[in-house]
């Protein structure tokens, strides 16, 4: 491991997505595998495999509808969800998705059939009425947004459930497809639905691309955007309108109960992967599309598998993947970084002890004995033998029986660490008014992370001082270059 790697240690780690979310993701992964397995041998003789093949070939019109439909709805929800997550509006999505249910029923009652356009209109209107209620409650009462959201969500949903059960009893109604709106069934997507989805998705993409700048400005600081003469109110309302429409096109495949996950989860995953909004939105859209397609595929494998939960599980599984394997702040990366750091610090401390022993002997010998090192470190010989062996493995020192000697690399690094330590102690006492007996512990940490540039700057500020606050010599860069003490073979004892 190269020196100086550690300086990039943990830059502002955030844990916005807490344990609950992770638990969901793990659960998702655990649930997904058996389901996929169970689905494969569904029915007699490899019918599952035949289904896979049927899905992959895309020749079947019904399959094509499902594929396109889930891609479109996943991508659209992911894209808008990206804005929701950065605006901390995740709960609004939840409320919105429940509030549309009465509109679905109303759209059905319009002409007693599952007409996608009527349902889109009805549901979008219901969703917007719901969010309008929320903001009216916030404005005119002392209630805060969370309470208002919970209230509106539940009451609209209740109204929707009542209407649906009434519809199912109506003699004239062919209400077969309506239960899909609760739990989602991608296979129900027909050509008419697909057309509506394509139009909504197209408008959403056009809106985001054309008004990207305004959307970002309004999301970050609506008051400032308004003061700049940007059409903040229009942008906000258009956004809410498109959000409602996207929720509605996703309803059939995902279901009212889970559709908000399609807004939040891909965006949350993207949030973990990047810190740039533009990338976050692209990732969220892609992840949403992948989740939609993956869930549709899994539900296709067996009869009666609900699409909605599977889509959400795929999204949660990718989220879990990002939490574990994310290159930025994934748990594995963090774990390795920390482990590598611990190991390196330990090795550097061993090198430093070797330096101290050698220094006390005036660098007269090429190596030091394990016994000397053990005395210095107040450890047993066996313990320091393990440390020495570790240095040997990393090419920092050579361990020959009881004799430990530096390699050129190890000698250079040992000198650097000691120099960093003493420079920092001197800096703290001279420039930061620390008492000399307070500085050691600080220096113990800093010595491992000071980069060359910082060292140059310290040396300059300290006028290239030669002695630390305790009177020991600070090895300079030139010393480190010149010295050849500690080469093997120079020791006779």
């Amino acid at each position: 491991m190269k020196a100086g790697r550690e300086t990039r240690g943990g830059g502002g780690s955030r844990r916005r997505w807490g344990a609950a979310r992770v638990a969901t993701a793990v659960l998702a992964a655990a649930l997904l595998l058996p389901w996929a397995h169970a689905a494969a041998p569904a029915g007699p003789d490899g019918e599952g495999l035949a289904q896979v093949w049927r899905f992959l070939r895309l020749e079947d019109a019904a399959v094509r509808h499902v594929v396109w439909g889930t891609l479109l709805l996943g991508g659209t929800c992911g894209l808008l969800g990206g804005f929701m997550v950065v605006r901390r509006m995740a709960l609004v999505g939840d409320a919105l998705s429940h509030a549309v249910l009465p509109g679905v029923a109303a759209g059905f009652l319009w002409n007693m059939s599952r007409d996608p356009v009527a349902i889109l209109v009805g549901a979008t209107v219901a969703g917007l009425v719901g969010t309008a209620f929320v903001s009216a409650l916030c404005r005119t009462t002392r209630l805060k947004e969370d309470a208002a959201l919970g209230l509106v969500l539940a009451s609209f949903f209740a109204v929707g459930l009542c209407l649906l059960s009434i519809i199912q009893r109506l003699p004239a109604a062919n209400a077969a497809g309506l239960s899909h709106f609760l739990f989602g069934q991608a296979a129900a997507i027909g050509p008419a639905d697909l057309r509506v989805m394509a139009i909504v998705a197209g408008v959403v993409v056009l809106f985001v691309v054309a008004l990207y700048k305004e959307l970002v400005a309004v999301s970050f600081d609506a008051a400032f955007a308004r003061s700049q003469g940007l059409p903040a109110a229009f942008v906000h309302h258009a956004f809410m309108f498109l959000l409602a429409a996207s929720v509605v096109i996703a309803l059939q495949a995902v279901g009212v109960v889970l559709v908000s996950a399609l807004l939040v989860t891909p965006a949350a995953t993207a949030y973990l992967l990047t810190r740039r909004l533009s990338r976050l939105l692209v990732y969220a859209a892609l992840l949403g599309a992948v989740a939609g397609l993956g869930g549709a595929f899994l539900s296709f494998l067996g009869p009666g598998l609900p699409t909605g939960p599977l889509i959400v599980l795929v999204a949660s599984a990718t989220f879990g993947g990002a939490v574990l394997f994310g290159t930025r702040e994934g748990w594995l990366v963090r774990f390795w970084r920390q482990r590598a750091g611990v190991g390196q610090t330990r090795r550097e401390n061993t090198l430093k002890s070797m330096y101290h022993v050698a220094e006390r002997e005036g660098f007269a010998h090429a190596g030091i004995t394990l016994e000397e090192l053990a005395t210095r470190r107040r450890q047993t010989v066996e313990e320091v033998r393990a440390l020495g062996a570790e240095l040997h493995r990393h090419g920092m020192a050579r361990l020959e029986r009881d004799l430990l000697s530096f390699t050129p690399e190890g000698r250079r690094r040992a000198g650097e660490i000691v120099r960093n330590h003493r420079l920092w102690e001197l800096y703290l006492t001279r420039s930061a008014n620390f008492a000399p007996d307070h500085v050691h512990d600080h220096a113990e940490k800093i010595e491992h992370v000071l980069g060359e540039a910082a060292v140059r700057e310290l040396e300059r500020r300290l006028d290239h001082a030669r002695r630390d606050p305790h009177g020991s010599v600070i090895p300079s860069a030139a010393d480190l270059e010149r010295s050849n003490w500690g080469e093997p073979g120079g020791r006779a004892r």
Partner: protein
Amino acid sequence: MNAPTASPVPPPVVEIHDLTVAYRRKPVLWGVDLTIGPGKLVGIIGPNGAGKSTLIKACMGLVPTQGGWVRFWGRPFGEVGSRVGYVPQRETVDWDFPVSVMDVVLMGRYGRIGLFRRPSRADREAARACLEQVELLPYADRQISNLSGGQQQRVFLARALAQEAEVYFMDEPFAGVDAATEASIVSVLRTLRDRGCTLFVVHHDLPTARQYFDHLLLLNLNVVAFGPTAEVFTAELLQRTYGGRLTLLSEVAQALGAQGGPR
């Protein structure tokens, strides 16, 4: 003077007439009158809850007013919005929002860029120049979530500078900044004033308010006093503004004492 009107006497840069604002019928600003010309650095002073932020928001058209009006160069805010800049209180936005310092400063130019268009090279250059002025250029590509409070405040200032407005309203731009930063912000404000801009700055520290501003607006529900600092910064007027609260009064007395009383 760039007020395109027919009248021979140019209208004042800012004119506030009988402005009244209420939240749920409780008035927080009551009949505020004020007229000011170009090139003035005005401190807005008053106790907590006096309505300072509300006055600024009302001028920027951000809260509904119950009565009265505000004109800039004789025209309503809606017609001249991009010539009026705004520095809100820092806490009004989410600093975890995933954008860079440069992105935020560029937002100051969105008003003049126009709908559907992307910022040009010239806009970026202008934004860089503003970052330079507030000594944040090295931070241009940083995420705003990694900034300290004083740096955030300067980002807001740079965003307002990027707007190249002629009137500025700044809500507590010195809150939570260290002395060196405060000094550099003050010098930026003075440069703007010397260029002919008029600035309204909410400020809480009385001794420095007296040094920084050439005009003071003492506000508490309505205008207690408005005029050149030397005339307005008196123990009596300040007492009326702050309603005789002891700690503040002693602070005022100290400030007056330190500078040898009102001139």
